[in-house]
């Protein structure tokens, strides 16, 4: 441990230096290019142009072996640099976490938080003065000097991280990223140039959609629908309450003598209230993902943050309009209410239409698998943009699109496409999130501030008070209607989880009234920082202190799935007998409609009629197969897999009958034929390179080989179970292999890549196994039970086989974090 430490220290230090260098470089590149554009543009070109011409006319200039033209690639270059910076920050964050995890020093957590804040503050104060003179001295090469000067700082920061144990438990990633943003902003400012701010267009058009789409696509739809009423009440009534309470109280504060706020009128206060009162989905996601809270609370807070977008959009436009016009009539109020319905329902409509289109398109992509994921992304993005065109709620549109599209797309696309969609969504959203938080930090340093103590402090306090009052008041009403009541703890977490974030900042940035804009913006930033830092950091200890129920770790088992379905039907039945149409009744109706029409139109092939339980079962088998592959060496197998086999469960009498429903001669031939033709096809396809198809890499080849070996070990192990009870056929190994047919797992294991299966050569895979089947038909005692194979069994096998050879459903169980 002690030996390793310096090396690790050095490495992390180096890492941070690299990060800082990159950040400085990206900052300075923006700066350099900016100054080039303004000053060196037309003036610099004029002397060169004639020179060029004369050169070309008089004598031929030597071919430039190395030329420099940064201007052409400036924009993409800077963008990539920023993204790279964001990614490295994220990586750095993780690296630090791992590092801290190793160094378990014995400090209390509270001390840790304190120290971190101190060290960050120290850094911030130090970053300014020490680097300023340097920057003024040589503006040409700021990056070099700053790396040197900031080296000590990073070392300090690094040491700070070193001493503090379990920092990852205390500080959410969002806080660290904002901290990094502040640092980068400080450095850029110290160079003496203007730092880039979080541009509203950039934010709403490029950074926000990936996060929302990711959230919408993976929205736990059942929990969302079950709590729809509560979420809507919080999102609509709660937000309205917050807006008017904060706006009104702020106005009251402004009336107090001697605080230099006399010029602020009621409408601007309300406008400010509408900006600052909405809970932010990005911030909520970032914090709540880390604390792993139970699904109900998560969906309540997160759902609210998604749905209050419509309210915010309407109120924002309304108040902005009014504050220009100056007067408000009753008619305006009524129109505002109408507008709210148009904005929210219109957004959902637009999203749903695009979602259906997307689902319908995915029905026909069987032959062009590589472009499947793009359809999902593009339709969703189009939904968002289309909604924005009419000033509808883009967020709701995106959510509706994702929710609508998902079940059908999942059934239609191949397993690989599904994985691609999932990874791309996660990747984009995590990059966006990182960028947003970094930009938030940078913009804080960059932006013009007008600090007014009274205004800022009253804003923060009012935000907290109105949130708490709103949640408590609304829960009183909601609990009358809810069956699962919200407890005091739940209320506290919902109130405390109301984080504000970058949406508020961007909206504040859009304000045109520049007299008070700066003051408003400063207050908004303070509220954001307060919620993200103070609430975000303390929510985890509080959750643990209050022993709030955490998220369930395990994935649903097959028994749970069976009983979930059973319960659904049971409750529907009981409701029907009771004679009133509740939640379950409508859910059942919707399901039936979905099965009867939508699935038929939107899902290709036989999968459209597949019941949910069967798809769940298939997914589960798939997952088990994957686990088997990933589980390392064959020696480990028994510990992972259940050591109970079907034989233990079967009645002893009937056990013999079921244990070996094996294959007849003709059936075997059939299977062989299918397999062989498939293999030949694979070979043919492998020979030609296709730009539109994925090539199989050698690694995958390896994996599949391992997979087969494991399967065989597994099968043999299982067979040994099968054969323990009927003692008369224990000794022949070939028989054992026959038996794995009823489990039909040989085929399900690798069906994700069945058409382009890497097993191009005659492999020990299924083909081998099948050939063993025929061999085992030879003289041995176990023939007797196999002789009387029922016809149905055969048909069933055929079905299974065909199903296994086709592309399976996506595997939901894989975990992404």
């Amino acid at each position, binding site marked *: 441990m002690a030996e390793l430490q310096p090396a690790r220290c050095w490495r992390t230090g180096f890492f941070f230096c690299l990060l800082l260098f990159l950040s400085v470089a990206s900052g300075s590149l923006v700066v350099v290019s900016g100054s080039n554009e303004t000053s060196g543009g037309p003036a610099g070109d004029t002397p060169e142009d004639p020179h060029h011409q004369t050169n070309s006319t008089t004598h031929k200039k030597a071919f430039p072996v190395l030329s420099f033209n940064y201007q052409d690639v400036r924009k993409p270059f800077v963008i990539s640099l920023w993204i790279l910076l964001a990614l490295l920050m994220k990586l750095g964050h993780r690296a630090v976490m791992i590092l801290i995890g190793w160094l378990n020093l014995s400090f209390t957590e509270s001390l840790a938080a304190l120290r971190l804040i101190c060290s960050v503050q120290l850094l911030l104060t130090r970053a300014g003065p020490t680097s300023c003179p340097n920057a003024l001295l040589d503006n040409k090469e700021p990056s070099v000097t700053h790396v040197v000067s900031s080296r000590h700082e990073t070392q300090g920061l690094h040491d700070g991280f070193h001493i503090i144990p379990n920092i990852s438990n205390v500080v959410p990633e969002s806080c660290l990223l904002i901290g990094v943003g502040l640092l980068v902003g400080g450095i850029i400012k110290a160079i003496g140039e203007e730092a880039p701010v979080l541009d509203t267009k950039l934010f709403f058009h490029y950074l926000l959609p990936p996060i929302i789409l990711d959230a919408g696509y993976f929205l736990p739809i059942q929990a969302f629908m079950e709590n729809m009423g509560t979420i809507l009440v919080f999102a609509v009534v709660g937000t309205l309450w917050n807006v008017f309470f904060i706006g009104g109280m702020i106005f009251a504060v402004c009336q107090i003598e001697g605080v230099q706020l006399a010029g602020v009128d009621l409408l601007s206060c309300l406008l400010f209230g509408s900006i600052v009162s909405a809970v932010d989905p990005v911030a909520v996601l970032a914090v709540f993902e880390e604390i792993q809270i139970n699904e109900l609370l998560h969906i309540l807070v997160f759902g609210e943050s998604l749905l209050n977008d419509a309210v915010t959009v309407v109120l924002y436009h309304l108040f902005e309009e009014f504050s220009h016009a100056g007067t408000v009539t009753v008619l305006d109020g009524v129109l505002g209410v109408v507008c709210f319905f148009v904005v929210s329902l219109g957004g959902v409509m637009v999203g749903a239409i695009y979602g259906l289109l997307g689902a319908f398109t995915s029905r026909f992509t069987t032959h062009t698998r590589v472009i499947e994921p793009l359809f999902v992304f593009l339709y969703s993005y189009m939904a968002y943009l289309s909604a924005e065109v009419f000033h509808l709620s883009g967020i709701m549109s995106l959510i509706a699109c994702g929710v609508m599209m998902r079940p059908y797309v999942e059934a239609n696309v191949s397993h690989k496409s599904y994985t691609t969609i999932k990874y791309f969504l996660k990747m984009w959203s995590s990059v966006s999130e990182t960028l947003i938080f970094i930009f938030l930090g940078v913009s804080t340093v960059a932006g013009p501030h007008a600090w007014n103590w009274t205004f800022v402090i009253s804003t923060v306090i009012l935000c907290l008070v109105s949130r708490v009052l709103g949640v408590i008041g609304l829960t009183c009403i909601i609990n009358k209607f809810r069956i699962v009541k919200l407890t005091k703890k739940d209320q506290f977490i919902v109130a405390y989880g109301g984080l504000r974030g970058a949406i508020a900042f961007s909206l504040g940035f859009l304000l045109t009234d520049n007299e008070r804009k700066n003051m408003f913006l400063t207050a908004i930033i303070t509220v954001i920082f307060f919620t993200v830092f103070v609430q975000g950091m303390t929510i985890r200890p509080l959750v643990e202190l209050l022993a709030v129920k955490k998220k369930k770790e395990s994935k649903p088992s097959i028994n749970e799935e069976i009983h979930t379905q059973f319960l659904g039907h049971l409750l529907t039945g009981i409701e*029907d007998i009771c004679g009133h149409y509740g939640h379950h009744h409508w859910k059942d109706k919707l399901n039936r409609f979905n099965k009867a029409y939508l699935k038929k139109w939107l899902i290709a092939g036989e999968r459209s009629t597949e019941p949910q339980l069967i798809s769940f079962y298939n997914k589960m088998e798939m997952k088990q197969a994957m686990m088997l592959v990933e589980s390392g060496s064959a020696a480990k197998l028994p510990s992972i897999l259940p050591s109970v086999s079907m034989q233990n469960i079967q009645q002893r009498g009937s056990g013999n009958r079921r244990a070996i429903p094996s294959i007849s001669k003709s059936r075997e031939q059939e299977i062989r034929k299918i397999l062989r033709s498939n293999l030949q096809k694979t070979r043919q396809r492998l020979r030609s390179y296709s730009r539109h198809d994925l090539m199989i890499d050698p690694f995958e080849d390896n994996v599949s080989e391992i997979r087969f070996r494991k399967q065989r070990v597994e099968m043999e192990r299982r067979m040994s179970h099968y054969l323990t009870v009927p003692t008369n056929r224990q000794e022949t190994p070939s028989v054992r292999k026959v038996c794995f047919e009823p489990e039909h797992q040989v085929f399900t294991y690798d069906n994700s890549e069945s058409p382009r299966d890497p097993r191009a050569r005659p492999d020990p895979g299924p083909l081998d196994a099948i050939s063993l089947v025929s061999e085992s038909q030879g003289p041995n005692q176990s023939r007797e039970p196999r002789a009387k194979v029922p016809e149905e069994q055969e048909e069933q096998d055929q079905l299974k086989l065909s199903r296994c050879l086709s592309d399976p459903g996506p595997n939901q169980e894989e975990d992404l974090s």
Partner: protein
Amino acid sequence: MGASQTRAEHQYQDLADKTGFSFEQIKNLYQRFQQLSGNEETISRANLDSMPALANNPIRKQIIGAFFDKRNQHQDEVGSCDQIGFEQFLMVMSHFRPPNLRTTDEEKEAMRKEKLRFLFNMHDSDNDGTITLAEYRKVVEELMSKSGEIGQETAKAIADAAMLEVASINVPNMGPEEFYEGITFEHFEEILKGLEMESRMHIRFLDVDTLTMRCGKSQS
């Protein structure tokens, strides 16, 4: 008139104590009961069988069976009856009451047990205390009975996998010679631990007249 009124009140009080329903809920359910029975004193299987709303329910048989199962009457009797009166009807319904804010943890636990017992009894058709593989297969088959051919064929495999799972969860190290009899109630509790039955297995019993008002469902 007055006498019958007080008698009904008294009877309601009795039922309310037994089942935990409120007067309004009992009144509503009584109306429904009369509607179903055709103003008779009792309901027979045929009454429920002919309900059009149930026609599409895949587990219709089990649901109806549960109403006529004596095990669900909070008494120690077994077997099934052909006719049930209002009290028995209410008893079955009482298994679907939701917990409220004042329910303590112990009460919740008892509630969960009771609800699980109801489900268990639905599966355990021969009342021998275990759900055997055959019984479990039947459950899954019924569940898939509305999904055509494929459903029926896969049902067996699913039931087998589920049974295997139960066995491997509850008896992790089973020797090859041992034999798993079936799911006992303890095992049943174990496998459905994650489902939070106490808060999930409920329906909304309306407090107001069902025929005049049909709202309130949007709030859940």
